[in-house]
């Protein structure tokens, strides 16, 4: 680790630290750490979201490591209680996983296997339909560095990276100079497609505003043009986009040297879902008949990509996996967490590094409140407040080393800034899994 001890305060500087706030996983942070106060006082190179992430994750040593039914408990007692809850459940579910290390994710899948439990990540409520689009039609894709080096056409469709992934454009895709993009921004065209203008519209050369819910139609229209077919004029009425604009966009996409379509939850969580993502992937595939074209979801949480990746290598499936027959099965809609909760099937839940009580649909929350919940989180959350067993954990990237997978599947190492008195997710999952195996063996 690169540590340069400064003289005045008891501080240290961590170079090349990694920010795990969003899927960009920027690994060029320079953190100034106050070792006495256990907090980060400066985060050079971080965006506004990263700065908040680093400054807000100080350690409150007065918090108990565990609560059982709201009362302070030892870690050992909490693990025992958690193991008993999970082993005695008929349909235990494990959920979350997008804000923890891949090491902890691997252990969580192992635990699900030994428990014959259901396991699912926050993918199922964000880019799950992207995974389903991939399963249906494939995906031409790339790493972010190739975008920097080659892409002269960047499309942001149904996403707003300027607010949600602030460094995506400035560090990776639009502003930087690259191997074949000597002038940076000047050498690129940026197109923004959305139902309303956002901060991202301000950095675009062309903004295409379409009617809500007409993404699939507009994507299909662009595919038709790229395949040399004529459009039915009703497309203007369906999408609200003038024919001339559709043709202009299609021809720009077809004539670039290296193009990329970034997209977000404007496609995955609106009408059409995996049909939208499938159509988008196919548009990129079709454009390869004219030029080199790729596609990339702008993934949200720091290691949500890792959750998909780890679950795929251990089970064959990216999310929504059920082990209750003794082997993994995958069925979005059946084994995805909100659906299980809404149907009232789960009778115990282990929530790792996520906050469903704050985010899920009302009927899912209602059921979650009725069953015993075990929560892992560095901070008190609405979920930890209803949990039977609430565990306080160290924060990945800030206190915990390990690997996270960037939105383009590139594994990035973490350089923790300071030690936390609390255990990591992995530190708890390992003995918890061991205890579950012991209890199951009897």
């Amino acid at each position, binding site marked *: 680790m690169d540590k340069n001890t400064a003289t005045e305060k008891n501080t240290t500087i961590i170079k090349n630290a990694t920010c795990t706030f969003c899927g960009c996983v920027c*690994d060029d942070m320079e953190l100034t750490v106050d070792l006495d106060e256990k907090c980060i006082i400066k985060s050079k190179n971080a965006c506004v979201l990263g700065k908040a992430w680093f400054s807000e994750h100080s350690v409150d040593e007065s918090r108990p490591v565990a609560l059982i039914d709201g009362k302070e408990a030892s870690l050992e007692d909490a693990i025992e209680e958690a193991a008993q809850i999970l082993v005695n459940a008929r349909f235990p579910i494990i959920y979350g996983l997008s804000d923890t290390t891949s090491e902890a994710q691997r252990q969580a899948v192992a635990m699900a296997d030994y428990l014959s439990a259901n396991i699912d990540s926050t993918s199922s409520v964000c880019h799950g339909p992207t995974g389903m689009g*991939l399963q249906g039609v*494939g995906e*031409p894709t790339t790493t972010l560095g*190739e975008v*920097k080096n080659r892409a002269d056409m960047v499309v942001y469709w149904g996403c707003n990276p300027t607010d949600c992934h602030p460094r995506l454009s400035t560090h990776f895709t639009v502003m930087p100079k690259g191997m074949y993009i000597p002038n940076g921004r000047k050498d690129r065209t940026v197109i923004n497609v959305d139902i309303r203008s956002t901060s991202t519209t301000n950095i675009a050369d062309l903004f295409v505003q379409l009617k809500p819910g007409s993404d699939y139609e507009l994507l299909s229209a662009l595919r038709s043009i790229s395949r040399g077919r004529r459009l039915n004029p009703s497309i203007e009425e369906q999408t609200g986009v003038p024919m001339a604009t559709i043709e202009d966009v299609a021809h720009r996409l077809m004539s670039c040297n290296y193009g990329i379509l970034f997209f977000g939850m404007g496609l995955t969580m609106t009408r059409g879902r995996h049909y939208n993502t499938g159509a988008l992937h196919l548009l990129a595939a079709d454009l390869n008949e004219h030029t080199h074209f*790729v596609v990339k979801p702008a993934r949200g949480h720091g290691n949500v990509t890792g959750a998909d990746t780890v679950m795929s*290598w251990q089970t*064959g499936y990216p999310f929504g996996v059920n082990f209750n027959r003794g*082997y993994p099965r995958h069925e979005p809609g059946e084994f995805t967490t909100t659906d299980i909760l809404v149907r009232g099937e789960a009778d115990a839940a282990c929530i790792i590094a996520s906050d469903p009580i704050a985010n899920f649909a009302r009927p899912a929350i209602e059921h979650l409140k009725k069953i015993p919940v075990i929560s892992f989180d560095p901070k008190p959350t609405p979920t930890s407040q209803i949990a039977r067993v609430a565990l306080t954990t160290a924060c990945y990237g800030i206190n915990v080393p390990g690997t996270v997978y960037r939105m383009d599947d590139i594994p990035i190492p973490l350089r923790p800034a300071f030690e936390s008195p609390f255990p990591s997710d992995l530190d708890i999952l390992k003995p918890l899994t061991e205890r579950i195996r012991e209890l199951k063996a009897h």
Partner: protein
Amino acid sequence: MSSTLRIVNGKVYDPANDIDGQVRDVCILDGKIVDSVPEDAPTIDAHGMVVMPGGVDIHCHIAGSKVNLARKFQPEDHRYDPHPGTEYTRSGSGGVVPSTFATGYRYATMGYTTAMEAAVPPLSARHVLEELEDTPIIDKGYYVLMGNNSMLHQLLEKGRMEEFREAVAWWVKATKAYTIKLVNPGADEMWKGKKNANITALDQKIHAFDLTPRKVIKALIDVANDLGLPHPAHIHCNNLGHSGNYETTLETMRTAEGRRVHITHIQFHSYGGEVGKNPVSAARAISDFVNDNPNISADVGQVMFGKSVSMTADAPLAWMLRHVKERKWINADTECESGCGIIPFEYQQHVYTHTLQWAIGLELFLMAKDPWRMVLSTDHPNGGSFLNYPRLIRLLMDRDFRNQEATRVNQKAIGKTSLPDLTREYSMQEIAIVTRAGPARLLGLKNKGHLGVGADADITIYDEMDNKEEMFNAARFVIKDGHLFIKNHEFCADHSGRIFHIAPEYDKSIENEIRSFFDDYYSVQFDNYPVSDTHVHNTEVIANIPVT
């Protein structure tokens, strides 16, 4: 605590030590083969059984970024082939691209105890190492892609050979790889350009560089030899799958100029005929060259009928296959380092080309004079799953079975090959060579592939049966590092296996130059790129060969 075991009454096949089916004891102490163990050591009675070293797969695709994409995008591949856990083992899913746990257990069930993942971009090193850690029982390692590396291209075009060598050594060490892999060298620059093009000749200019594939190939063969890597440069030649490509393959082998090189899945590179027309067999020309040049080794990359997945760093190849049948397709570009393409595929007996590929693979096996240098692979899962190995072994050992199978395939294609005239049958000893002793020797793994004193106690015991497919399908006992973990066909323990890598020395001053390239063209920080020693567990550094 020491653990001992004695295997008695088995017919032992240990070609590296010239033991060819003699009945003799094999003794194990603390994970190694020893001369003798105390009288009261536990024994396995292998009467009526065949004892061999554990199998070694020199070339397969079992872990890492492209394998995982292939898993992720084919739920239909797993759904009908679940892999339940046992008291000792984890569950998983099967199919042509199994989950990591299923991969390890299924290799072990066949009696394989070592397997090498054959193509990973350096940027994904951590990923493949994490997956390999989750691949149980077997020992493993991986080959790192170097044939389309922009920084290395830059050094090479300027003729800076010293720096080139140091940079290669840095890269291999930083990524904890086992050797250098080349895939369609020079093609990625063309592929990532506007025309999605491919490179077609060894002396063609690589787009944007004053360089040709031949120069890249020569330089990397030389570096691997100069550094004394235990396994030489592992090459997937240009023009894979194209009619007439055998000439490219011959040229690639000539480029080695007598130095060690491994040509992988050579079947896919042994086609005659004209570009764009139906291929014919050029197995004879390729086989003659390999037979005559002891510096060359190869694995076959046999095609087996049924489901496969084409997954390759050769992105233009996958693009070509996409046009054969417009199926779902993955392309994955890696900055400055690699391309990748994935297509689900099926080899069908009635199709001319597929039959020809099947027959050429068998020709290459049956024409090989030195089985130590023409070893068994299906380029799993490209030519078919590794689960086809037992069937492939039967095709090699049983002429009647082979002839019977040859009546079911495209007869026009069979007529263009010499397969009907090849009467050779592989002996048990030759099978032990192409599946164990040969690959271990080619990999430079001194403790693998044999049962001599000091070898790792990785041992497979098969029931001796007339039907060799049934025999090799499931070993009765499998021992890894001295531990019995398959007993009477059932798992009785779990085991994690080791990860092999090499760590060549390099001149530290090269790091500054690579760092500045990273600052300009990579999306990760130079300091975050090398895989630290604490990142992976259970690793073992395999020493370089002393260079004279």
